Structures are given as structure tokens and as C-alpha cells.
């Protein structure tokens, strides 16, 4: 497992196993957990469209997710009733499927995006993931108190004459980019498993906000390491093994 062949993919996934549960905690705080699936599908669609255009799929995925994150505030007013994320999810999925069906190479890439391609992560991707995760963690730490405050006391910023849109917009962009980064490495459903299950369990059990963040990371990292080892040992794809483990964690 620790041979060079697997060490780089393992470390690449480990960066995301730390980052995704934390992003998931703030998505759950805002009651936006469906964003995990929506941004992942948009990133997958963007990656496939970029491939058709002869561009780097990863760049397409990041750009599409960033556009969705940045456009969220503008779209929210037009799409009341919590319809934004389901519609983004449908749009991303439909684009991905149509591109995959009508382009022979896209079918393989599309399948890799949805199933995950962790074992193909190379040193350059690890470097990107490490830098991206570190930046996301720093930004998240800076936004944390403001995100909590705006959720609990929505009038706070207006009363103090402070602008709240950089907080919301900054987090939307961060979440979209983190999820796009994760989707192109772990795949759509493994990303969703790490964003949804650890915060869901941590929110039920932790006694304070800080403890819930620590517990979510512990569950995410523990589940990731166990899934990575099990998938290698049983010679099974990583994504479904992680998904099943997370379901078992949820039921325990």
C-alpha cells in the first residue's frame, strides 16, 4: 500500500478527506447539503464539455463549478422554493450524459468522473490538491464565525453597516471549487459521501461547534483510510467501498 504506486493517490485523497467533511459542516449549517451533488454534477458536465472543446477536463470542471458558485446568489432570487440545487444537479447530469452518449472518448472520461479515478492521481495532481485544500482551509477558517453569525442572526451585518455578500459569495465559490476538485479526483458519489455523512453524524453527536468539526474530520479521514485499504485488499473500486462504509457508519 505504501509503495510509490499507491502513496501518491492515497495522499491526494487524504487532502480531500480532511477538506470535504469541513465544507460539508458549513453546507449543513446553511441547509445546503444538496449543493454537494449539484456542484459535483456541474463540475462533471463542465469537464466533459471542456474535453469536447479540446481543453483540460479539470479546468472545465473547475470553471463550470466556479460559475455555478458565483451565479448562485443571482439565481436564488429567480428560483425560489429550494429549486436551485436540484436544477443545477439535473443540468450537470443531463449535459454529462448527452456528451458521453454522443462522443466515444467522452463516455470513458464521463465514467471515470462519476466512478472516480483516485488511483490515477499523480504527483502534479497531489500538489494541486494539497495547495487547493490548504487555501480552502485557510479561507474557511476566516469565514467560519461570519457564516455562523449570518445564519443565527441574519440582521447582524446590516445593523453594523457591514456587507454580508463577500461572506456568502466567498463560501459559495469555495464550496464549488472544493467539490469540483474532489469530483475530478474521487468521483461524484465518493465526494458526496465525504461531504454528507461525516457532518451528519458529527452534528448529531458533538456538543459544540469545534468538536463537531473535529469529529467530522475524524470520521471522514477514518472512513477514507479504511475504504482505501479495503478497496486495495479486496481489489474493488474505491468509490463504492467508501460509500458502503459511510452508510455503515451512518447506521451504527
Amino acid at each position, binding site marked *: 500500500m505504501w509503495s510509490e504506486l499507491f502513496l501518491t493517490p492515497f495522499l491526494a485523497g487524504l487532502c480531500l478527506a480532511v477538506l470535504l467533511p469541513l465544507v460539508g459542516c458549513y453546507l449543513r449549517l446553511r441547509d445546503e447539503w444538496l449543493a454537494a451533488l449539484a456542484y459535483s454534477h456541474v463540475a462533471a458536465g463542465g469537464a466533459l464539455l471542456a474535453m469536447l472543446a479540446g481543453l483540460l477536463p479539470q479546468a472545465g470542471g473547475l470553471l463550470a463549478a466556479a460559475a455555478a458558485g458565483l451565479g448562485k446568489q443571482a439565481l436564488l432570487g429567480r428560483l425560489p422554493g429550494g429549486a436551485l440545487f436540484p436544477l443545477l444537479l439535473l443540468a450537470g447530469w443531463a449535459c454529462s450524459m448527452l456528451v458521453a452518449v454522443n462522443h466515444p472518448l467522452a463516455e470513458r472520461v464521463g465514467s471515470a468522473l462519476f466512478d472516480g479515478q483516485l488511483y490515477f492521481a499523480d504527483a502534479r495532481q497531489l500538489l494541486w490538491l494539497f495547495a487547493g485544500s490548504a487555501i480552502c482551509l485557510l479561507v474557511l477558517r476566516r469565514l467560519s464565525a461570519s457564516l455562523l453569525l449570518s445564519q*443565527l442572526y441574519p440582521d447582524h451585518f446590516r445593523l*453594523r*453597516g457591514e456587507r454580508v455578500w463577500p461572506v456568502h459569495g466567498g463560501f459559495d465559490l469555495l464550496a464549488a471549487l472544493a467539490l469540483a476538485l474532489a469530483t475530478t479526483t474521487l468521483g461524484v458519489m465518493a465526494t458526496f459521501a465525504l461531504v454528507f455523512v461525516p457532518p451528519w453524524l458529527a452534528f448529531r453527536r458533538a*456538543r459544540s461547534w469545534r468538536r463537531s468539526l473535529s469529529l467530522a474530520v475524524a470520521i471522514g479521514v477514518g472512513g477514507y483510510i479504511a475504504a482505501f485499504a479495503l478497496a486495495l485488499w479486496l481489489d474493488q473500486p474505491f468509490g463504492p467501498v467508501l460509500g458502503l462504509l459511510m452508510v455503515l457508519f451512518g447506521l451504527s
Partner: protein
Amino acid sequence: MTQPLLCLTGLVAGWQVPATRPVDLAVAAGRIVGLTGANGAGKSTLLAAIAGRARVFCGQLEKKPDLRIGLQTQDVPPLSGLPLSGRDLLALTAASADGLPPWLADCLDRRLDRLSGGQRHYLALWAVLQAPAELLLLDEPTNNLDAQGVRHLAQALRTRADAGCGILLISHDAGFVNGVCDEVIVVEAPDVV
């Protein structure tokens, strides 16, 4: 007399349409002003207009420049299912735990969604009451509080006002308003005109 923190002159507030009669009032530093009146008189709408949430239809609303305002509404913060302790909440608004009654100080490390309604309400109120602010707007602060809680709140408000904070509060509890406020203004329902 020092310049008031807040001054309303003939202010008519509402949402889509006017919902109050013209109101005149002033809140100076160190003073507690109470607003009472029948349900539907527009007391909460008036507070919302001062906070910038509701519309001002006519009259004047003047605030001291760079005034820091704290607002407590009747909407309970959405705490259900969130792993937030009382200590987390006070840290968020930079409110001090000094002066909390013992029956709340002992609960600071427990999750807010596992406290009683009264404990949760008072902690959410305390987070606003003790946050750095020069003017406090409180909408029905005695809701969900028992007699012991109401007595403690009255003392806490007086201490805050003595420290130089101006307070404008709405309450249907006439005894509380008359006991704690320096001035009481009765807001009449618009249809009384």
C-alpha cells in the same frame, strides 16, 4: 440633554402598506424606552423599520452616526440540530458570560437545542444583550421566561443602561415595562384613528 442615539419624528412604518400611526420617540444613552400597545398596532414593524428591514413611509428616522445596534426579534435563531453550545453562541456575538444567572451559567457547555425553551431563549437574548452595542432593540424579551428570568432580565437591562447603552423594547407585559422603563410610549393601532 445629550444628543439622542435614535430619534423618530412622525414615523410611519410598514411592509407593503403603512402599518403604524405616526410615532414620535427618542432614545438617549442610558435610557430604557418601552413600547406597548395592542396586537396589530405595528410595534414590531416599527422596530423592523429602525433596523432597516421594514419600509419607512413618512416621517423622519435619525440615528447617531456609526451607531452600533443590537437587535433581538421574536424569531428564535435556527438552532435545532446544530451542534452549538451556549459558549459558542456568546463567543459569536462577543457577549460576556459575566452576570448570567447560575441556572444558565451551568448550561453554557450544553448544546442549545437540548436546553429548555426558556433557557434557550434567554441565552439567545443574552448573546444580543451583552454584545458590543450602543443601542439595543428588543422585541418581547420576556417571552418564554419565568418570573425568576423576568426579574433577572430587568436587572440586566438596568445594568446595561447604567453602562451607557440606550434600550428600546417592546413588551406586552405591562408590569415589566412599567418596572424597568424610564419612559413608556403607547402605540395605537392604525384603525383607531
